[in-house]
């Protein structure tokens, strides 16, 4: 199962990617929304899971979310915002724009695992 992690912090991307690989996912990474879309277009892959930070340069996570949800190709992709934005209004906006879940930073590996279970994504391994 392949996953996409989009975060402008390489350190955070690396931590999340490592958690996901530990659960059996193969993981692609991007530093902003534009990079993520370019990668997806080039690879032709459709990830089962996309984890999006909100605040990123060039194209932020909310804009990327809307782009992904406007494309039927990614209908089956579960999208989770993973962000320090913890205001109720942000959460509401993301869910209304088509995010399936929302994980506030900081979070524990157990919290990530439980969110994946909520999404119906058991560990691939």
């Amino acid at each position, binding site marked *: 199962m392949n996953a996409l992690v989009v975060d402008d912090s390489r350190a955070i991307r690396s931590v999340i990617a490592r958690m996901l690989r530990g659960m059996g996912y193969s993981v692609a990474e991007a530093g902003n929304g534009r990079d993520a879309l370019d990668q997806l277009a080039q690879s032709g892959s459709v990830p089962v899971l996309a984890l999006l930070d909100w605040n990123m340069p060039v194209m932020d996570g909310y804009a990327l979310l809307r782009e992904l949800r406007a494309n039927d190709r990614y209908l089956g992709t579960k999208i989770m915002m993973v962000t320090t934005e*913890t*205001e*109720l209004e942000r*959460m*509401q906006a993301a*869910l209304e724009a088509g*995010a399936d*879940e*929302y*994980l*506030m930073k*900081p*979070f*524990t590996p*157990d*919290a990530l695992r*439980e969110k994946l*279970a*909520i999404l119906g994504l058991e560990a691939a391994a």
Partner: protein
Amino acid sequence: MPPALEPADFVWLCTFLRTESALVIDESKEYLVTTRLSPILRELGIASLPELVVQLKRRPMTTVHRRVIEAMTTNETSFFRDVHPFETLKNQVLPDLVRRRGSAGLNIWCAASSTGQEPYTIAMVLRDMFPDVAARSRIYCTDINTLVLERTRQGLYTQLEVNRGLPAPMLVKYFERKGSEWQVREELRRMIDTRVMNLAVPWTGMPTMDIVFIRNVLIYFDVPTKKQIITRIRSNMAMDGYLFLGGAETLLNIDDNFARSHEGKSTLYKRAA
């Protein structure tokens, strides 16, 4: 490294906990004692576990005694813990009871409810599915620990706590921000009734229950006490009431007056006698 407990002190501590809260701790659970009590030593201004036992042997009971009982009786919990029982609640139990009871309210009991995530999970599921029934229902939260009951009443949770197991749509629908924390909305808090209760001691004044959750707490009691607790709970239930235990728990050799069924990935007990 701080000194560990001498065997005689560990035995004394187990007796103290058994007497004061009916908790059964044997040698296999010594890690639980160390894990739960070591963090409160600094708070209490005590240097080590052996010194803690010295203080506990003194009478009358003080804050130290109460704090130790609280630390040992605060059980970990989270929203939608183990997931599957709440799927069974949603897909099987609530529809069945509402079919039988109509729009009358339900009485639901969370025994050893700790900090309240389980009863609030039940409240969210019930309110989502049957808002009219939810408005007339009561969720009784009992625990031996008064601190956790106070937390339950307040319905205030940290970001780490609401991040765990709680679907984001539920968080948005049923919580509001209170500073850096999250509070359960008043419409759900209104459903909750909290009572101090030691399950090992006969109780009075609990209404007939339609659903009882007693998850991951019977493990702390010996077999005779488990039997007494389940017998008393059963007699406090409606004849068609449902019982939920923890995932690894069973009523085998405890009580055979419940019909057991497997619903999805959880085991369900229904009062049969």
